[in-house]
């Protein structure tokens, strides 16, 4: 008996050792393997997006609600995190401005696609006019969204896309390669062109994070080839777990680790806290995506120089405006731009995506102006 399970444990270790060797060279852990499209190196280089023909889906015989009041539901990846609280607030702001839109935010308490599908399904049955979503999985969410379209319900996505044919429009906060460039350039500026860094992400199966890491790798290969990726760790969306993982990385690499990337609004403050607790403020850079409030203490301490994000309030705001324009017929397949209230005109890119704008960098100078 004893020898049997000793043998299996040994086999397990062998397997793991082999597989870790296999993944050592090649793509960074946590990246997906979709094609990448790195931007040009150097400051201010943003590629003009190629315009593609419209590739979104369309609702079947939607009732004509142009100019009339519409009821929308917003189903984010999960509720209960600052980021989606902010997008929800933006939506409420837009609804108040427009006056003829009612929007409710409702969703699962954990980022599970199965739960999210059930939420959307219930709202289809209760007959909303439009659904706004941020998908936990782009392919898995498609069947239920297509069902919504087939029942004449308008579907607009934001933050995390679905397959294009499952929604009419997708409000994209920033291009994946734009985020990747901003992150890598920020890190290079802080740790130098031959610095080593590690990545703290949520899970390897979160689509946006996986895309960003893949684009970061492509961009780094192109513009910062001497920078050295050490490893990527998963930390769910949990503060304590992220903190522990970041601490482990700091302890493991010691001086070799010059920078940490935080890929979620949970991972970044936790990494900053780990660096602070280890007394390495200023010696280990922390660059990542996060909401301002969580990062204020670290930015003020000088531990974190810049926080990359976009304005999620604006993202939610734009999503509602896009939905309203879509319902009113003011935004049609083939249009090149849409009017988004106080955000002005937003461009349509990639066929059916609406771009919010370039990534926004929060730093010591401006972070106090925001409260989310």
């Amino acid at each position: 008996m004893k020898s049997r399970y000793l043998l299996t444990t040994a086999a397990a270790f062998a397997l793991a050792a082999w597989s870790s060797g296999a993944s050592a060279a090649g793509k960074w852990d946590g990246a997906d393997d979709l094609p990448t499209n790195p931007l040009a190196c150097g400051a201010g280089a943003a590629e003009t997006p190629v315009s593609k023909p419209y590739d979104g889906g369309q609702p079947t015989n939607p009732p004509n609600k142009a100019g009339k009041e519409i009821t929308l539901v917003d189903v984010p990846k999960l509720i209960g995190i600052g980021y989606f609280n902010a997008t929800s607030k933006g939506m409420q702001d837009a609804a108040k401005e427009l006056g003829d839109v009612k929007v409710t935010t409702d969703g699962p308490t954990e980022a599970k696609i199965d739960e999210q599908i059930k939420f959307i399904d219930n709202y289809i049955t209760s007959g909303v006019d439009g659904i706004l979503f941020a998908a936990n999985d782009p392919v898995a969410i498609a069947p239920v969204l297509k069902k919504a379209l087939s029942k004449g319900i308008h579907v607009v996505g934001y933050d995390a896309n679905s397959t294009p044919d499952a929604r009419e429009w997708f409000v994209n906060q920033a291009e994946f390669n734009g985020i990747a460039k901003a992150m890598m350039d920020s890190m290079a500026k802080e740790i130098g062109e031959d610095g080593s860094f590690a990545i703290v992400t949520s899970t390897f199966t979160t689509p946006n994070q996986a895309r960003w890491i893949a684009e970061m790798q492509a961009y780094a290969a192109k513009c910062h080839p001497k920078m050295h990726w050490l490893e990527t760790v998963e930390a769910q969306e949990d503060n304590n777990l992220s903190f522990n993982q970041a601490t482990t990385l700091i302890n493991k690499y010691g001086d070799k680790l010059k920078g940490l990337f935080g890929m979620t609004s949970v991972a970044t403050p936790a990494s900053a806290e780990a660096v602070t607790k280890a007394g390495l403020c200023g010696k280990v850079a922390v660059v990542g995506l996060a909401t301002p409030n969580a990062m204020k203490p670290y930015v003020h301490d000088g531990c974190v120089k810049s926080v990359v994000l976009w304005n999620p309030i604006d993202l939610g705001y734009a999503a509602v405006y896009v939905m309203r324009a879509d319902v009113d017929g003011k935004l049609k397949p083939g249009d090149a731009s849409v009017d988004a209230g106080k955000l002005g005109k937003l461009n349509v890119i990639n066929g059916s995506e609406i771009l919010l704008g370039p990534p926004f960098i929060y730093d010591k100078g401006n972070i106090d102006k925001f409260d989310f």
Partner: protein
Amino acid sequence: MTVAAQAPARKAPRWLARHETLLAVILLVALAGLGAFNERFLTIDNLLNQGRLMTEIGLIALPMTFVIITGGIDLSVGAIVGLCAIMLGYSWKTFGFPLPLAIVFSLFVGGLAGFVNGLVITRVKVPPLIMTIATLALYRGLAEGVSQAHSVRGYPEWFYFLGQGSVLGVPTQLLVLVVLVVVAGVALDRTTFGRTLYAIGSNETAARFSALNVDRAKLIVYTLSGLASALAAWVLVSRVTTTRMDMGQGYELDVIAAVVLGGTSIFGGSGTIWGTAIGLAMIQLLKNGLALTGVKGDATIVVIGAALILSVLVASSLQRRRD
């Protein structure tokens, strides 16, 4: 335990003269109430759709009833769902199996996973709770390791028939579930196998001394639990058209809630498939009805938790009074 003497009486269902009837009444009352609040609730369309959505949990709840009747538990079912989903996609894409073979392979993996649970529980005598907590972690980890966090998508059209299609207006997977509910219910009520399960749950030592093959029965129910999880994985992948290593996360608690709500005692020795079916329907319809009435997700969770405690409380105190 005094239950041993009463076990023969409880096995032959005297036409649901107990917990199940009570539950069915509560279910009907809840249906009527929710239907009154919201006109879209009691439509055929909605009810059939709910049937479609509850199939994965329902399939797993059937052998879970068996498992709990024997006094055991299986917390690894959700992880087995994830593992089988991954294996389905992985063997199709990476091994190059033709899709039907891939499906069979994933069913085999599920059965094997359940079999391993049963083997260690019966041979090494690790208590089921402990064993399945450990395999919960192991199987989920295997799903992640094998898949390397990749999803497999792009299945041929016929594959989606199970999860998204309908036969004569009834969702395909719901038909499968109904058939299996009947099969499981008959197996439990009317076969020697079923009686063996009750005997094991009531008094395992006595069952052994009665020359019942306790170990084999346990092995069978845990294997069935793994198989049902694999079947649920197949339905799920067909329904959402992709595989993810985190599929099935949290299923174990939903399944146990349905089984326990249905009147199966967690201590073993009593319970029926019909009760489980009602418990399953009740939870699904309650969630749906609340959502349609405009109650948001977080409040719905609170109501479900309270409803679970209350129904078990009501049903068991009334039963005690009847006894």
